[in-house]
């Protein structure tokens, strides 16, 4: 439970963090809340030579409205996201998802940018971002770019982030009053989802049904064509090939996706 040796550098600004990333390349990892990275380092599943701490950068935290979108700083902690009035009013699914992450200790340390960059397909926030049709702001040596959630998650724990880039903010549409539903199937309350489903305004996202958070496109299409929630949900697992572990085999996961999607669609709040 002791990590391999590493250097620690506290970045003084986002720009400084980018300079450090440029210097150290893929030997470096950004550290924010540390609640995914540090356990992996302690188990020696991750052995970065340098940790660049951006968790203290105030300019990367907080929630603001920007025209039709909410802009959430990357180091905004889950507990703050869950409690933010603006988020609760205008992107309530995101606030709810933040409140489902882990346990209170994790929610007071973990950050939205960290969770999205970690890209665990079983996690809450990646699924929520996909359901919301949000995007991420990425800063790099060549300036900044915005990547849609659907394009950001590229594989199992893989994203569009380059080794010299930093996820600086998250954007989600401001949609007060839009119905949403959320189903997280767990063994114990603070476990990762065996399967998760988030729906908002006809978009359906699935957690732990593949290498990345997925859109249930066949079910979305059925809904758009006027199918009932129950009928649409029958297509929730179409085209998915989820992994198998001791909690669920492929067939059980696909079954859960259908049941949970129906429940998410039928029990929407808004």
């Amino acid at each position: 439970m002791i990590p391999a040796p590493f250097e620690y550098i506290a970045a003084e600004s986002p720009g400084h963090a980018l300079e450090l990333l440029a210097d150290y390349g893929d030997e470096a990892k950004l550290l924010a809340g540390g609640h995914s990275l540090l356990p992996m380092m302690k188990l020696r599943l991750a052995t970065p030579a340098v940790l660049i701490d951006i968790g203290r950068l105030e300019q990367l935290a907080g929630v603001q409205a920007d025209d039709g979108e909410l802009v959430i700083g990357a180091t905004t902690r889950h507990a703050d996201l869950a409690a933010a009035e603006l988020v609760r009013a205008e992107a309530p699914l995101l606030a709810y998802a933040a409140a489902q992450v882990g346990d209170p200790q994790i929610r007071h340390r973990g950050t939205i940018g960290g969770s999205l960059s970690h890209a665990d397909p079983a996690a809450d926030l990646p699924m929520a971002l996909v359901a919301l049709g949000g995007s991420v702001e990425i800063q790099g040596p060549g300036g900044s770019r915005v990547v849609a959630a659907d394009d950001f998650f590229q594989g199992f724990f893989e994203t569009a982030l380059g080794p010299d880039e930093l996820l600086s903010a998250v954007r989600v549409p401001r949609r007060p009053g839009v119905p949403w539903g959320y189903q997280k199937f767990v063994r114990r309350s603070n476990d990762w989802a065996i399967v998760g489903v988030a729906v908002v305004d006809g978009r359906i996202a699935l957690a732990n049904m593949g290498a990345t958070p997925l859109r249930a496109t066949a079910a979305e299409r059925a809904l758009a064509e006027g199918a009932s929630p129950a009928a649409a949900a029958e297509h929730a697992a179409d085209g998915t090939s989820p992994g198998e572990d001791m909690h669920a085999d492929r067939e059980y996961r696909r079954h859960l996706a259908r049941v949970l999607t129906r429940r998410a669609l039928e029990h929407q709040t808004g």
Partner: protein
Amino acid sequence: MPARRELARGDYLSILGTRVLRTEDPKFLTTGGVYTDDVVDDRLAGACHVFFVRSPLAHATVSGIDVSAALEAPGVIAAFTGADLADLPAIPPSAAGLINTEMTQRLLATDKVRYVGEPVAVVVTELAYQGEDALELVAVDYDPLPAALGFDPGDSSLLFEAAGTNVAGYWGDPASLRPDLFEGCETVVSHTIVNQRVAPAPMETRAAAAVWGADGRLTTWIPNQGAQGTRDDLVKLLSLEPGQVRVITPDVGGAFGAKFGADPEHAVVAWVARRVGRPARWSETRYENLIGMTHGRAQQHTVTIGGSRDGNIQAYRLEIVQDAGAYPKIGAVLPMLTILMTTGPYDIPSAEAIAKVVVTNTTPIGAYRGAGRPEATAAIERAIDLFAAEIGVDPADVRRKNLLPKFTEPHRTKFGALYDTGDYVAALDAALEAAGYAELRAEQAARRASGDVRQLGIGVSSYVEITGMGDGEGTPPSENATVEVFADGTATILTGTSPHGQGHATAWAMLASEELGIPVEKITLQWGDTDLIPEGGGTGGSRSLQQGGAAVQQASRELIEIARERAAAELEANPADLVYDTSRSAFAVAGDPEASVPLTKLAEGERLLVRTVFSQPGATFPFGTHVAVAEVDIETGKPTLTRMITVDDAGTILNPLLAEGQRHGGIGQGAAQAFLEEVVYDDDGNPLTTSFADYPIISATEVPSYELAEMQTPTSYNPLGAKGIGEAGSIGSTPAVQNAIVDAVAHLGVRHIDMPATSRRVWEALRAARQGSEHR
């Protein structure tokens, strides 16, 4: 001035039976306990740190170990392999003779490894953080062998070639089973069920600190359940003289049976300290704990039960396979206790039980809360529900019909257990009444009729268990206590028991306070230092209060008699004329309360101290009934435990607060086995549950508030009337919860779901039942 009443015992409210708050808690809730890894002691100054290289393979021959690169790593002082410890004896199996004597273990594996996690070498470093880097530099040449796994590991891949078999031994003779056992039964049901492997997972992992004195004596701090047993194990493992070892027990963060005695790692740490000539420390990681500490349970049961269609059970057979893990330790012996408790609280005319013990390429099995008895309860409680379902009679009625009637004189079972006192039907009825059993059945029927997605299940489990066993060699169960009163009005108790969460400091002080009149807060309890308390049986098997507590009461009473002689001399009175007034801790002459002498004055000269040993005639047998209510989501299979109602009769209760705490912990731990916890290995013997992300210990969010009904049937075996309560909760709750989950889906054609009855297993059982009915 009002006339004073004559002094007599019982003139004031007794502290016994009251909810005295735990005197331990202010420390644990504020400054924290001092666990082995926290111990600061001059003798440990400059300690080096020991790290274990553990086998990554379940089964392999070891053709070479190269520590040279590790020796070059920063901070590394030394590295040792099994070859360095070759002069120490191999560890024999438990119950050698009955268990194959060839199945021995080395402190560090030499030619072969037999489970993932087995220690093969150690690296010794200056600083604690340097060890894990150095471990990676130890090169071990393994030649993999096929892993022998499961309850039928076969003999194609032998763990111990010299044994010629992976069967470690038998309890009972398979040839003795009667082919006609079920003759005359209208209905016979048989099923093979698994009582799965679980991990004790105490919050404090294993640890040790060791130092050798100039006099050649070892002093070692180890979290344990009885310092004296740990000392005796170390003496054997290290080939020392009994007087050469001093074990000191710091605060212990949970044990659950798995911290009895000493493990090979504890002995290796002591050996390293002597070899490198400086104190040595070790503290394992959670990963190491989950693969290195003994596991529990791991039995397969084939139950066969027969009787009449109206619910009279006439015959029962229990065939056990015990997976002992890679080395037959105490786990190989536990089936003996399972067999002893085969029929539980039931009166079954014909019953038989046998056990086969196998070795497999997995972590060895040890004692785990209940240790052999929960397995017996789980087997028969499932068997009764299977039987009840087959004949279509309410499972509670089947139990009532077959429970032993109330008895006040000891009852000898066919398997040789001598139950002291019991009123099993009363416990069943009390639990059913507290649960509102009829209303629950009505609610269940309504949900079944409406096709509710959340179906209701009600599980009942009646149990009797053994607490306070002797050492099995004919000596009665006993424990010692020393009580000393000081002139400043304080008192000290020394006990041979070993608290690790139970609350002995509170309970033992209550017992002494009752006799001496000294307030609880002025009484200090000491335990767990073998120089201070050379003898003792430790804490386990739910023995402590009935023996260790009774010894405190006995010592306190004997102390009063010594003090009475001194008081008589002081007051120039006849000892028989003196009355001890606990309300002011003083002796007075009967009829003349003004002529008195306080206990403290009698402690001013010669020490006022008594050491005594209390023995009881035999083990006691607490009993009870648990009712679990579970909801099962029939679309997802997810079970939710919604109510837990229990009667746990442990005789007279000394402190309800402490007893309820033991019940709470036990109920939760037992429920966890029913639907959450399992140590899982893959087909190659790789453990898959190596962190708390994968090994799901239960938390408050997975259990309801417990509804505890009271019942106290005293035992005559000790003056407290007390039986044990430490394990009962986990014995009753496991089958109750399992039965509830099965019951919730019974109407859909499901008869049994193995533990842990996870969402996936429930869903698969529902699917199989549905497919079965479609094929009919």
